[in-house]
């Protein structure tokens, strides 16, 4: 495995091949926890790994240097998939000082007993000289936690970006040019949609700051290292941080006896116009992870639910709760669905669409018990309307482009 980023800068993390549920994020391709070792006159460990893999991390470090030679452990983020091994690491590296920002130490102190650790607090612009190389810190609050930070090595034009630009992708290869690029970009998009999407404004701010840095390589905390294609992932983030729409219509629904299902298929049929991509997802047959990944660049959305107990179906509620938390911006949408004797489903859906500040294109499209032929015609027309609107919103973007070509 090629684990060398630059002379004496190595990946020392671990590959989690079999993880398939990452706090509800479905990781079909596994994950990695990336940590890096920078050896110079002083030696720095950039981040640790999830707690069960602590020994593997220490073995990887020991292959490269004596544990007592590690002078610094930089913690760019307090979340357990990266900081979980800190207690074991700090006890095993006797000379090491923990380097992190003020908020990070406060957070770590609520998770672990950090009282015995040597610590050095850093803020944006601070530097730690290692010898030929310098570590320079960039606080990135809310990308994606309050204490999140990047570490930049100006002499190597190398950015340790923590979770930013990351992907859940287990592989025996560590670099972007050693794996199928389209696959890792898809995983990067899925990661963005499911983890980073609420923080578009902060991401835009960070991209502006990063624009002022000379960057040739981006080493995130998950997945492959952007050694050949850092410009590609930065371009992608510029699109994703504003949920830049494609000419794409997304129809998502849940159904009890297929009435809402029939309406959903009719809407999708109407939306299947030239110049547009239409996608139909059933809430209980698609994972939340996939639904979020399809929403991010959809221009228009139809969300449907049958009526159950005067409200919407529970898993439709789960999907909308999840999406509302992710704050996808700038979409246009409408609610639809069926009811029996009392309304409730589509109306409850619409409240979520409004809470996400989406443009509501029409009042809820309803059917009682079974959608009559006129109702299905109305669904097809509404689908066509979604397609026209999607084309307008997407400008000259083409439908169905590979993420490599048009992220």
């Amino acid at each position: 495995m090629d684990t060398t980023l630059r002379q004496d800068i190595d990946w020392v993390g671990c590959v989690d091949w079999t993880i398939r549920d990452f706090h509800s994020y479905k990781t079909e391709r596994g994950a990695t926890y990336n940590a890096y070792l920078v050896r110079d006159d002083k030696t720095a460990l950039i981040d640790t790994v999830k707690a069960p893999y602590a020994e593997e991390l220490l073995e990887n470090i020991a292959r490269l240097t004596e544990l007592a030679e590690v002078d610094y452990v930089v913690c760019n983020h307090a979340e357990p998939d990266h900081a979980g091994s800190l207690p074991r690491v700090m006890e095993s590296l006797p000379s090491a000082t923990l380097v992190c920002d003020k908020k990070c130490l406060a957070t770590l102190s609520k998770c672990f007993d950090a009282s015995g650790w040597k610590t050095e607090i850093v803020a944006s612009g601070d530097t730690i000289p290692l010898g030929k190389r310098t570590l320079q810190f960039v606080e990135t609050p809310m990308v994606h936690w309050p204490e999140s930070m990047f570490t930049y090595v100006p002499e190597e034009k190398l950015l340790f970006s923590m979770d930013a630009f990351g992907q859940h992708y287990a592989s025996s290869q560590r670099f972007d040019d050693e794996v199928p690029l389209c696959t890792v970009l898809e995983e990067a998009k899925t990661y963005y949609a499911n983890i980073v999407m609420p923080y578009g404004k902060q991401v835009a701010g960070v991209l502006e700051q990063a624009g002022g840095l000379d960057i040739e390589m981006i080493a995130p905390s998950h997945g492959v290292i952007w050694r050949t294609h850092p410009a590609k992932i930065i371009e992608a983030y510029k699109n994703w941080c504003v949920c830049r729409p494609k000419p794409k219509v997304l129809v998502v629904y849940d159904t009890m006896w297929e009435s809402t299902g029939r309406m959903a298929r009719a809407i999708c049929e109407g939306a299947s116009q030239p110049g547009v991509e239409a996608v139909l997802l059933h809430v209980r047959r698609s994972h939340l992870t996939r639904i979020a990944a399809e929403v991010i660049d959809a221009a228009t959305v139809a969300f449907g639910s049958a009526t159950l107990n005067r409200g919407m179906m529970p898993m439709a509620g789960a999907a909308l709760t999840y999406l509302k938390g992710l704050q996808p911006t700038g979409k246009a949408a409408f609610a639809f669905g069926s009811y029996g004797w009392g309304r409730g489903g589509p109306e409850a859906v619409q409240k979520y669409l409004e809470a996400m500040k989406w443009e509501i294109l029409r009042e809820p499209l309803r059917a009682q018990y079974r959608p009559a032929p006129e109702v299905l015609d109305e669904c097809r027309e509404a689908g066509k309307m979604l397609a026209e609107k999607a084309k307008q919103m997407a400008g000259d973007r083409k439908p169905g482009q590979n993420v490599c070509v048009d992220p």
Partner: protein
Amino acid sequence: MQKYVCDICGWTYDPAAGLPEQGIEPGTPFEDLPDDFECPECGAGKDAFSPAD
């Protein structure tokens, strides 16, 4: 008027602008914000704000 910055995420409250989407009129000093005011970016409470430079 004194601006206040959220210690958690860095969002700034500018009294001159207020926060119309939360019903806070332009010209409302920070001290006059309701006790249950939350940072629109990250949800932090009033006690997480500090005077901005």
